[in-house]
C-alpha cells in the first residue's frame, strides 16, 4: 500500500512517515499503559478493599478480645458466684455493683453487663435496673445458643436487647455459662452487650469509593450489619448473604439494577463473621475512563507536538536540499554558479553541496577551456589554410617567372611577380578572420591572374559583383579555394579555353556570391569526395575542401548559411555562397563572438 503512494517531496514524506511512526509508537504505548493501569487499578481496588475490611475485622476482634477478657475476670469472680449461688446475696451486692460500674465506665462500648442465675437471681449493670419480665429470653436465638454452649463463650449476631426493662438497644452479645462451684453445673449466664453503634460507625466510616459499602454476615448467613438491612430483609433489594460464606474473595455480581459489584470477603476466625467489602465496578470504570481520557488526550497532544516538530525538522533537513535543487536547476540552464546552502555542519548534504560546487567549478573551467581551445583551433585552422597555399602553385609560378625572364619577357615577369607579391601579402599579411568582399575578390582575382598568365589561353574569367556588397564582410579564404576547385576539377581537364564567372549581389539581408565554370562538371561521387576531404594535406592541389568551407560558413554565420553546389557533367559547376549582409561596424561583435 505504502509503496503505491509517492509523495511529491521529501519534506511531505518525512512529515508523514515521522507522524505515522510517532502515531504508531504513541498508540502502542497508550494501549499498554491503559492495559497496565487498568489492571493496576483493579488490583489496587481489591487490595484497598481487602485492607479496609481487614481493618474492620481487626477492630471488631479487638472489641471481642476485650469482652472476652472482661468475661474471664467476671466469671472467675468469687463475689459474683456468691451472689448468684451463695447464701449472702445482699452482702456481696456492693462489691458487684462497684465492679460492674467500673467496667461500664472504662468501656464505653459496653452497653450492658449482666449475670442471670437459673434460680432467678440476676444483676444488671449497676444493679439498679430491673429485668424486663416480658423479655421471653428463651425465644431469643442468642439466648438459646448461649444456653446450649454451656460454659463456652458465644458471640451472637446483632440483635435488639430487651433484657432491661424499657430499654431496647441494638447490641452484639457475648455470653458465657457460669458454673455453680458447689454442683459443678452450669447454672447461670454471663452477658456482655457490645454497643452496636460501635460496629455501625466502624462500617460506615469505611469508604470504598463513593457508593461502595461494607457489610457483615454471621456464620449462618444472617446480617450482622448492612447499611440497607431493611431493604434486604423486606426483599426490596438482594444481597449476597449465604453466598459469601464459603467464597474466598473477589466475587463479581450483578444486582437488580444491572450494576456490577465486586465483593471482597474476609472471614474472622474469632467471631465467625464474614466481613464483605463491596465496590461498584462503575466507579472503577469511571476512574478508568478518566484515566483513558487523560491518556488519549496526552497521546493526541504528543502527536500534535510530534507533527509540529516533524514539520520543523523536515524543513530544516530539506531546506539545503531545496537550495541545492535550485542551484542544480540553474546549472542545468547553463549558469555555472556555485550554490551556497546553509546545511549547517558537515553532514551528507553539505558534502554533497561541496562536491556539487566542485563539479560545477570543474565543468565551468572545462567549458571555458574548451571554448578557448575552439577559438585557438579555428585560428590555427585558418593559419593552416593560409599556409596550405599549395607550394606547387608557388614553384610553378616561380618557374613561369623564370621562364619569362629567360625569354626576355621582362614586362610579363614583372607583372607576374608583382601580382604574386600582392597575392602573398594578402594571404599572409592579414591575420584577421574577416575581410571585406572586395578584399577577398581582389585576392581571388590576383590568384586567377597568376593562373591565367601561367596557362595563357587556358582560362578566362569575369568578375561581376554588385558594388553595394563590396564593403560587406566575409570570412577570409572562401572564394579563392572555390576558384581553385573550379580550375583543378572543372577546367583542367577541359579541352580548349575555360571560363570562370564570379557574380555577387544582395538579396534582402543576404549576400549571394556565385562561382561558376564551364568545365567538365562533377558527378555526385566526386562532389561528396570534395565535401569529405575538408583538409587534405600533401595532395597535389589545394587542400581546402568544400566541406571545410561549408563548415566554416555554418560555424560563423549559422546553419541557414553555407554553400550549395550545382554541377552537371560537360556543362559545368556552379557554387553559390550565401552569407548574411554584414557591414564592418559589426566586425568587432562578430569577432568577439567567434
Amino acid at each position, binding site marked *: 500500500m505504502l509503496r503505491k503512494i509517492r509523495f*511529491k*517531496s521529501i*519534506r*511531505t514524506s518525512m*512529515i508523514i512517515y515521522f507522524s505515522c511512526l510517532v502515531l504508531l509508537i504513541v498508540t502502542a504505548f497508550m494501549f499498554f499503559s491503559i492495559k497496565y493501569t487498568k489492571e493496576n487499578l483493579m488490583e489496587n481496588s481489591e487490595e484497598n478493599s481487602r485492607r479496609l475490611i481487614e481493618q474492620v475485622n481487626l477492630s471488631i476482634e479487638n472489641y471481642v478480645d476485650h469482652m472476652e477478657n472482661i468475661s474471664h475476670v467476671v466469671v472467675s469472680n468469687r463475689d459474683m458466684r456468691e451472689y448468684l449461688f451463695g447464701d449472702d446475696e445482699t452482702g456481696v451486692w456492693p462489691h458487684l455493683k462497684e465492679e460492674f460500674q467500673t467496667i461500664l465506665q472504662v468501656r464505653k462500648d459496653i452497653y450492658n453487663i449482666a449475670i442471670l442465675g437459673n434460680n432467678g437471681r440476676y444483676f444488671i449493670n449497676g444493679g439498679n435496673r430491673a429485668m*424486663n419480665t*416480658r*423479655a*421471653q429470653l428463651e*425465644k*431469643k436465638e442468642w439466648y438459646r445458643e448461649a444456653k446450649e454452649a454451656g460454659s463456652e463463650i458465644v458471640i451472637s449476631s446483632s*440483635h*435488639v436487647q*430487651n433484657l432491661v426493662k*424499657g430499654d*431496647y*438497644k*441494638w447490641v452484639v452479645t457475648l455470653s458465657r455459662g457460669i458454673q455453680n462451684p458447689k454442683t459443678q453445673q452450669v447454672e447461670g449466664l454471663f452477658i456482655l452487650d457490645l454497643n452496636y453503634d460501635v460496629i455501625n460507625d466502624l462500617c460506615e466510616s469505611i469508604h470504598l469509593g*463513593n*457508593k461502595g459499602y461494607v457489610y457483615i454476615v454471621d456464620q449462618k448467613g*444472617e*446480617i450482622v450489619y448492612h*447499611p*440497607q*438491612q*431493611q*431493604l434486604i*430483609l*423486606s426483599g*426490596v433489594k438482594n444481597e449476597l448473604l449465604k453466598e459469601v460464606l464459603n467464597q474466598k474473595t473477589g466475587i463479581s455480581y450483578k444486582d437488580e439494577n444491572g450494576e456490577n459489584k465486586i465483593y471482597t470477603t474476609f472471614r474472622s476466625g474469632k467471631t465467625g463473621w464474614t466481613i464483605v467489602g463491596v465496590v461498584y465496578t462503575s466507579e472503577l470504570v469511571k476512574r478508568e*475512563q*478518566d484515566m483513558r*481520557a487523560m491518556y*488519549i*488526550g496526552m497521546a*493526541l*497532544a504528543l*502527536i*500534535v507536538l510530534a*507533527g*509540529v516538530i516533524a*514539520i520543523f525538522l523536515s524543513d530544516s533537513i530539506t531546506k539545503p536540499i531545496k537550495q541545492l535543487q535550485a542551484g542544480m536547476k540553474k546549472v542545468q540552464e547553463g549558469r555555472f554558479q556555485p550554490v551556497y546552502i546553509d546545511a549547517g555542519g558537515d553532514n551528507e548534504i553539505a558534502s554533497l553541496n561541496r562536491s556539487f560546487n566542485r563539479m560545477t567549478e570543474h565543468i565551468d573551467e572545462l567549458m571555458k577551456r574548451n571554448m578557448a581551445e575552439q577559438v585557438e583551433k579555428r585560428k590555427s585552422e585558418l593559419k593552416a589554410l593560409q599556409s596550405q597555399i599549395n607550394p606547387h602553385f608557388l614553384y610553378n609560378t616561380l618557374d613561369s617567372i623564370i621562364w619569362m625572364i629567360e625569354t626576355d619577357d621582362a614586362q610579363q615577369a614583372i607583372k607576374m611577380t608583382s601580382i604574386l607579391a600582392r597575392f602573398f601579402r594578402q594571404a599572409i599579411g592579414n591575420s584577421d578572420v574577416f575581410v571585406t568582399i572586395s578584399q577577398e575578390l581582389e585576392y581571388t582575382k590576383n590568384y586567377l591572374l597568376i593562373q591565367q598568365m601561367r596557362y595563357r589561353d587556358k582560362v578566362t574569367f569575369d568578375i561581376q559583383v554588385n558594388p553595394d556588397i563590396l564593403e560587406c564582410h566575409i570570412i577570409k579564404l572562401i572564394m579563392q579555394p572555390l576558384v581553385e576547385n573550379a580550375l583543378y576539377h572543372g577546367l583542367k581537364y577541359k579541352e580548349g579555353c575555360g571560363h570562370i564567372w564570379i557574380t555577387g549581389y544582395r538579396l534582402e539581408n543576404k549576400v549571394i556570391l556565385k562561382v561558376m565554370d564551364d568545365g567538365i562538371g562533377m558527378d555526385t561521387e566526386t562532389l561528396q569526395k570534395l565535401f569529405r576531404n575538408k583538409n587534405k594535406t600533401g595532395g597535389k592541389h589545394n587542400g581546402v575542401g568544400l566541406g571545410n568551407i561549408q563548415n566554416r560558413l555554418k560555424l560563423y554565420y549559422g546553419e541557414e548559411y553555407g554553400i550549395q553546389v550545382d554541377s552537371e557533367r560537360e556543362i559545368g559547376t556552379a557554387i553559390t555562397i550565401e552569407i548574411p549582409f554584414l557591414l564592418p561596424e559589426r566586425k568587432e561583435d562578430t569577432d568577439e563572438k567567434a
Partner: protein
Amino acid sequence: MKKHKNGIVLVLLLLAASCFVFSLIRLGEFRENKKVKIVFIPKVMDETNDFWMSMISGAKSAAREYQADIVILAPQIENDYVRQEKYIDEAIKLNPDVIALSPIRYSEMTDSVWKIKEAGIKLVLLDSMLDEDLAECCVSTDNIEAGTQMGNKMLDYMKDDTKIAIMSFVKASSTAIEREQGVRTGLGEYENRIDTVLYSNSDYEQAYEQTKQLLKEKPEINLIAGLNLYSTVGVARAVREMDLKHKIYIVGFDNDVEGIQYLEEGIIDTLIVQKPFNMGYLGIQKAVEIAKGKKVEKIIYSETEIITVDNIYTDENQKLLFPF
C-alpha cells in the same frame, strides 16, 4: 506548493486539537450529568421520631447509592405546615432536579406545591398525597390495603359478643378515611360490629381521654383499632390504666418504644407497621430515575408488616421496629 502543504498540516493540527478539547468537554458533561440534585422535605426531623428518621436515612441511603446530591429541609416539629411551605420556596430557589415532599396537609398546601411545578421542577410525594395530581410519582403505604390487613387481623380476635371501636385521627384526612375504609373491608361481614368511630386529632391525650370516656360509657366494647400511632398509644395508655388488659384487644398502627412495650406486655395485640426506610429509599430512587428521564409508575406502594408479640424480634422486624 508549500502553502498547500502547510494548509493540510494546519487542518490536521486543528483536527487533533479539536478532538482533544472535545473529549475533555464530553468527559466533563458526562460527569455533570450524572449528579442529580434532590431536595427532600419530610414532615419532621426529630431524633426521637423513629418513623421520620428512618425515612430520612432511607432517603440518604438511596442518594448515596445513586450518587445524588440530597438536601434535607425539615420542620422541627410535626404538623408545622407553614414552615414546610417556606421550605418549599427555599427548595425552589436551590433549583434541584426533583423535590421529594411529604406534605403535611392534604389540600391547604396546593398553592405552594404549584410553584414547584411552575419552576419546572419534578415532584415526588412521599408518605402522603395531595388533593391535586401534581406529582410524577407517589411513594406511600397503601392505606386501604393496610387497613384491610388490620381488619383481617381483627377477625382473629372476633368473638360472638365483640363490639368494635375505631380510634381514627383526623377527620376527613385522606389517610384516616382510607385506613378506616380498609378496616371495614377487612372485617367483611363483621363490619356491623363497629360500634363507634372516634377521632384523636393525632394527640395522645385526646385518644387517652376519649378512650376512657368511651369505656366508661360503653363497657361492652372489647376490640379497639387505633388508626395511627397517637391513637394507638393513647388507647393503650387508657386500657392499661383501667387495667383492662386481656379484656380488651387493641390493634394499632405504627410503633414507638412505648407501643412495643405495650405489645410485649400484651396490652396491644397487633401493630400494623409501615416501612419508612423503604419509603425514603424508594422515593429517592424514583426521584433519580425521573431526573434521568426514565418512566416510573405513578404510585408505588410500600408494604406494611403485621407485628405481634411473637415476631417482634425476628431479624426483619427488629430492624423495622428499632431502626437505630
